[in-house]
């Protein structure tokens, strides 16, 4: 199962540092954890970027997640 590690900001909503999720695609992770933690808003999570195994992805909707993957939600970064 993929491990989802919550930022200090998200930990305020989950009360936990991390969880394990059985999902193969990013969108299913979001569904799973927003069901698991009622304070997490599904749509807001979908608007965040993500790092899957260190690779930062801005719109990860259909990104594949391996059973050994480490997933972090991030603020979307822009630039100048």
């Amino acid at each position: 199962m993929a491990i989802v590690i919550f930022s200090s900001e998200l930990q305020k909503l989950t009360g936990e540092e991390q969880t394990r999720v059985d999902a193969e695609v990013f969108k299913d992770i979001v569904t799973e954890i927003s069901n698991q933690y009622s304070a997490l808003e599904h749509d807001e999570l979908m608007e965040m970027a993500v790092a899957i195994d260190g690779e930062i992805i801005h719109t990860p909707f259909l990104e594949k997640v391996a059973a050994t993957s480490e997933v972090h939600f991030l603020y979307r970064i822009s630039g100048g």
Partner: protein
Amino acid sequence: MSEAQEFKYIGQRTIRPDGFDKVTGRAAYGADLTLPGMIWGKTLRSPHAHAKIISIDTSKAEAHPDVMSVATFEDFVTLQSESVAGTEGASGVLDVARNCLADDKVLYHGHAIAAIAARTERAAKDALDLIDVEYELLPSVMDVEDAMKEDSPVLHDDMFTAGYDEKPSKASNIATRVEMKMGDVDAGFAEADIIVEREFRTPTAHQGYIEPHACTVTYDENGQSMVWCCTQGHFDVRTLTAKVLGMELGKLKVIASEIGGGFGGKTVIYQEPVALVLSKKSGRPVKMVMDRDEVFIATGPTSAAKLKAKVGAKKDGTITAMQGWMAYEAGAFKGSPMVPGVMTMFTPYDCPNVLVEGFDVVVNKSKVAAYRAPGAPQAEYAAEMVVNELAEILGMDPIDLRLKNAAKEGTQTIYGPKLKRVGLVECLEAAKNSPHYQSAIPEGQGRGLASGFWFNIGGQSSVSINMNPDGTGTIVEGSPDIGGSRASMQMMAAEVLQIEPKNLKPIIADTENLPYSAGTGGSRTTFATGMAVIEASEKVVAQVKERAAAVWNVTAEQVEYADGVARNTAGEDSMTLAEVCKSAEKTGGQISGNANINARGAGPSFAVHLCDVAVDKETGKVDVTRYTAIQDAGKAIHPGYVEGQLQGGAVQGIGWALNEEYIYNSDGVMENPGFLDYRVPLASDLPMIETITVEVPNAFHPYGVRGVGETGIIPPLGAVGYAVGNAIDRKVEELPCSPPRVLALIQNG
């Protein structure tokens, strides 16, 4: 990617394909399009920093014989507080519209209130005086600390601070609070033998692009409206303008002109929807060009900030804890780059205990816009200053202290993932071995150094490569070329196609000719659009193999392609790319490849800068006497343009550190809206910026590219600030180090 890659064209210093047009004056910029029947638009701007608009009477202006249309906020569609995604993150459409033309309040000196289109530019300007605006003046708040006070005048009655567990009961100028942490900072500081803690301030600073914002538009009720403008992202201009005006995307074409600098400042809209309203009401094409003072007072500079930085370390230099606090001015509407400031502040350091708190605060200044590595220079300035001071107290070489604590592969970041392979250690070692660092500090001068980190980004890019029957081709891309990216695209396509770069012509398509492409910003273009170019080129090569295979009655797998020649591995046949393209008519039609991607895997870039300064102790004037910029590019596609980016970032950062700042009077009116009084560094002010390009490849890019446009502006604030302090034996806590401020430091201690 393999580090052992050998390249035929990548890494050369080719002539930029747009260079001839630019140096001969043929290139068409934002103000260069003139259409039949075109009239001129001009904007009435607020003389006040904060006021209610009681009424706007445009009747006298409308009666003027040369005036053909007038626009106010009422001409925009009724908008909701909707967020629209773009290259620069999400934009609140209502705020964007209210920034283009004020609704019921003016929120800063220069805020647009109404616009007039007239037969001539002069007539439009003169007719602005015929618009009567009745104001009710409100107290203004010009400083982030004042804005955060409980009793501060509030800009937006409906803004409640986000980021607290409980929604506040009272409206506030603080839009958002963010806190990121890892480890236990209290324990980390308890473990420290030495703690350094200081407060810092950075000024409002503008990108200082040479070309003012300009557009020419035509509105067509039935068909195709058009915007020609200088922008970093014409697809985003289309999205936002269409939203503000309630138009379908398919009925608005946006063409990106050549662009005379942007640096993040041309990622938003100001005049475009206003000009379309004026065009719609007059039935004429409308041109709007900002004057220089309008650029300063009404477009987005970067945030002024107040910051606190604290670092704790053991006597051997091991950093045990880092803590930061920052409040960034957003200008009149929320949305400062505070969050990336929080994320980047201490990222160059591998420290287990970190806590950073940030605030996004509105004030009565123009809404900030992105500026190279938005948010990072301010935050990392504070961090680098305390790290330099720590080295001084420890008696350690500042590079050795950084090497001991440097972020590297596996370092946990405060924003989430562990770093993949990065090049900070390599940059520090290059700095240490550089001729500059090896040289003695000249008598009476000061030396400073600082490191910098920026994420870099990917995002959506669309590319089409169309081959001609003679084997030449066109690279059609959607990313405006600000810093020489046409040349990079040409070289990457040439590398795949194995033909001379000059045989491929890169062009920037308008919004009708390609699918969406995110804007040029965030150091994304050579990385992301480059990936699309590589993919499209590979599709061309695949077709070339198929066509040759069909001619030779073999399979495509039996065809090799190298040096621009397809070879039959099952026989002796060969065809050049030009020959395959020439025969394409007979083998299935012309050859092209396209790629519409959403690039991921952007590689962070680290930099280290060295700076020597001489300070005139009688006047406080600072002269940079030597400067070296070292940065990890991943892979320098065109080394010359990478060096140019490093030098450009350094010069802009030096200007920010030394002289650039918005100066307001007690009424909140900007007093220096021009290049005579807003002092950017000139070529004659600076020595040649020495550069060292480090290449630690980004594993997620086929050629290892990281992107280089952003990071270079981060270290100068700390490097210059520390050098000045070193030269005058004072601690520099406030930028810029302008002569009056430096003189006061010398005299007052």
